[in-house]
């Protein structure tokens, strides 16, 4: 196929802007015990959190970079050139009118206040290290639903927060969960009481405004027995010449019969290292579903996981990844079966454009003593140009003889004949490519809430524009 490709960045102009920094609190460069003390002092963290952070710092420093299996690009992260905490010292506002102008303009440009008006139950908008805006609909908070940022969560709701904090993802899980455990700031804390089904989604939006900065949001969501909630997160950053680091930890807990859906559309600019640890525990008959779309960033490493701890628990990961030139999307899923009759489902579709690279890593673990567990995995890759790359590393460990597991994988190209057929019907080459690519991910896009799926299609079309000469 005679398509040429421009290796330069696709226009991400929607998110590519920034305002001058006016930080009241700046932890300076590098991460040491002094940085931790600074962060704790500014945030007025309780002692148990200060200790937690300091222990995590040691774990982070002791652990090596996992480059024996992950990409060597990780070695390009300069931990000493990053600022670990920046904020204007303000508490999150409950009304957009009270949010400082530059911050408000940022979120208006990204469409957040409008979305909130139209269809959300609550919004957290984080700007660099802290939440600038945090609001929940009265109807929802009247039901006892708690939706605040992590600082408020650990201070005002310690009795709910602390028992689960660091239990789903222990500090030492990996080098970056340890880093997050040391430097975390922002992120959401959500508690949904028994039987409460939150009708509209809760949304968080993470925005990086500053250069040489690391954002470490920490999210903990606990859905009590029989309750249900959907949480959506979006993220963007302006494109800086220097690298930015985003290392989040998301812990989900679904109690008996609860349902939790976590939707992410990640569109970081191409200088961001996005290293995220996400995991959920599903108790008896509960369900944790990750719907994950990765379009941006220089390197994303993210393997949403579910530990099915109770009988008949269900875990699901739906993942779409798009890697353009200069990008590596290293994503996948982890399904750990720890009870009988648990079911897990993984569907991953990736698209590699130009010299982009996408990788799928999937872990499925079913131990011998369990009965009647099921796993279904489907991972499909689409290669657009001749130098596009995709890799698949399934790690399936199943023992015992009453389980059903299925693994399907495919790699395909958009055929020139398909493009010609569509052109013969009047579609330009670019339109034909877009249609083909959208067709490839179509059944997954439908899993996203409608408002997100429209935006998703738009983002993918934008990416496709550059892939055709």
């Amino acid at each position, binding site marked *: 196929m*005679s398509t040429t490709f421009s290796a330069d960045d696709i226009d991400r102009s929607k998110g590519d802007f920034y305002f001058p920094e006016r930080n009241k609190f700046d932890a300076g460069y590098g991460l040491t015990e002094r940085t931790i003390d600074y962060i704790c002092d500014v945030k007025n963290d309780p002692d148990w959190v200060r200790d937690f952070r300091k222990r995590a710092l040691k774990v982070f420093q002791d652990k090596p970079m996992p480059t024996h299996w992950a990409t060597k690009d990780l070695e390009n992260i300069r931990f000493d050139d990053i600022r670990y905490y920046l904020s204007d010292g303000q508490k999150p506002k409950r009304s957009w009118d009270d949010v400082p102008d530059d911050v408000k303009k940022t979120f208006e440009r990204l469409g957040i206040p409008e979305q909130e008006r139209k269809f959300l139950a609550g919004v957290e908008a984080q700007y660099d290290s802290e939440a600038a805006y945090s609001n929940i609909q009265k109807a929802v908070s009247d039901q006892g639903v708690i939706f605040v940022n992590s600082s408020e969560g650990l201070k005002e709701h310690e009795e709910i927060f602390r028992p689960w904090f660091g239990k789903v993802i222990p500090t030492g899980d990996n080098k970056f969960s340890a880093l997050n455990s040391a430097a975390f700031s922002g992120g959401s804390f959500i508690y949904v009481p028994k039987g409460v089904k939150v009708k509209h989604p809760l949304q968080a939006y993470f925005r990086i405004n500053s250069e040489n900065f690391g954002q470490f949001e920490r999210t903990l969501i606990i859905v009590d027995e029989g309750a249900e909630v959907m949480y959506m997160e979006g993220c963007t950053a302006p494109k800086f010449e220097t690298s930015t680091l985003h290392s989040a930890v998301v812990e989900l807990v679904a109690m008996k019969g609860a349902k939790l859906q976590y939707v992410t559309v990640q569109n970081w600019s191409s200088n961001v290292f996005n290293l995220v640890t996400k995991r959920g525990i599903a108790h008896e008959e509960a369900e944790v579903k990750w719907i994950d779309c990765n379009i941006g960033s220089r390197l994303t490493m993210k393997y949403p996981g579910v530990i099915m701890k109770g009988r008949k628990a269900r875990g699901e990961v739906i993942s779409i990844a798009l890697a353009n030139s200069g990008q590596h999307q290293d994503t996948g899923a982890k399904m750990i079966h720890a009870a009988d009759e648990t079911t897990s489902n993984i569907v991953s579709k990736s698209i590699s454009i130009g010299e982009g690279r996408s990788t799928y890593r999937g872990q499925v673990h079913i131990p011998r003593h369990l009965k009647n567990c099921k796993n279904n995995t489907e991972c499909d890759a689409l290669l657009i140009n001749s130098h596009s790359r995709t890799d698949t590393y399934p790690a399936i460990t199943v023992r015992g003889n009453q389980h059903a597991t299925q693994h399907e994988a495919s790699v395909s190209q958009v*055929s*020139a*004949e*398909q493009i*010609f*057929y*569509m*052109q*013969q*019907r*009047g*579609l*330009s*080459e670019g*339109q*034909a490519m877009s*249609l*083909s690519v*959208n*067709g*490839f*991910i*179509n*059944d997954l896009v439908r899993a996203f809430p409608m408002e997100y799926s429209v935006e998703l299609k738009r983002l993918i079309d934008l990416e496709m524009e550059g892939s055709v000469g």
Partner: protein
Amino acid sequence: MSLDIRNLHARIGEREILQGLTLDVPAGEVHAIMGPNGSGKSTLAKVLAGHEDYEVTEGTATLDGKDILAMEADERSRAGLFLAFQYPIEIPGVSNANFLRAALQARQPEGVELDAVAFYHRMYAKMDLLEMNRQFTSRAVNEGFSGGEKKRNEILQLMMLEPKFAVLDETDSGLDIDALKVVAQGVNAMRSPERGFLVITHYQRLLDYIQPDVVHVLMGGRIVKTGGPELALKLEAQGYDWLKDEVLVSA
């Protein structure tokens, strides 16, 4: 719309396939092209549609006087050219309805949205005419379709896009008599004084249902004989040998 081809030479790689093809199809007429295997029938269709594997080395092709060889494949389509493919390709994940909508939308002037209700109305009417089950609207284009269903789908697209000139590349291959009749019905419903058709076929049988005004025979990359519908009947009865002798004699 009229199609005018003069002395067309085209090759794929090093192989010369069309070797001086001249053909004139005035608007309102249906012309049939027959010929032995390898004579260049499908090549002609692909070259007219603008397939990038083929290179035109000499000659011209115009639609109502406009040079189509200078246009990209999609431009030619929007200029009014339609090709019903011999082997229609599958497009997974893209529904028939969405595909047709996209194709029609591509022809709208900038900023004009297609009327969705009118679109569905029209599409169902055409599908009924072609005896196509309405379920086909939500199925992915050609995916899992039988040969006959694919050919019917080509004609559905023809009827929806209303091209000014249509080239049908062996539309009858793989069709049983009943499907053939339905497809022919669709094509005949599209005949008009403004529209031209070039029907490429192996077998005379299709021409019982889509009666041509003129029949051409393509051999060795050029038109060697032109006649009325009776020419097709003669070929069916006698094969191509008599023609080959004739051509040799006049060469």
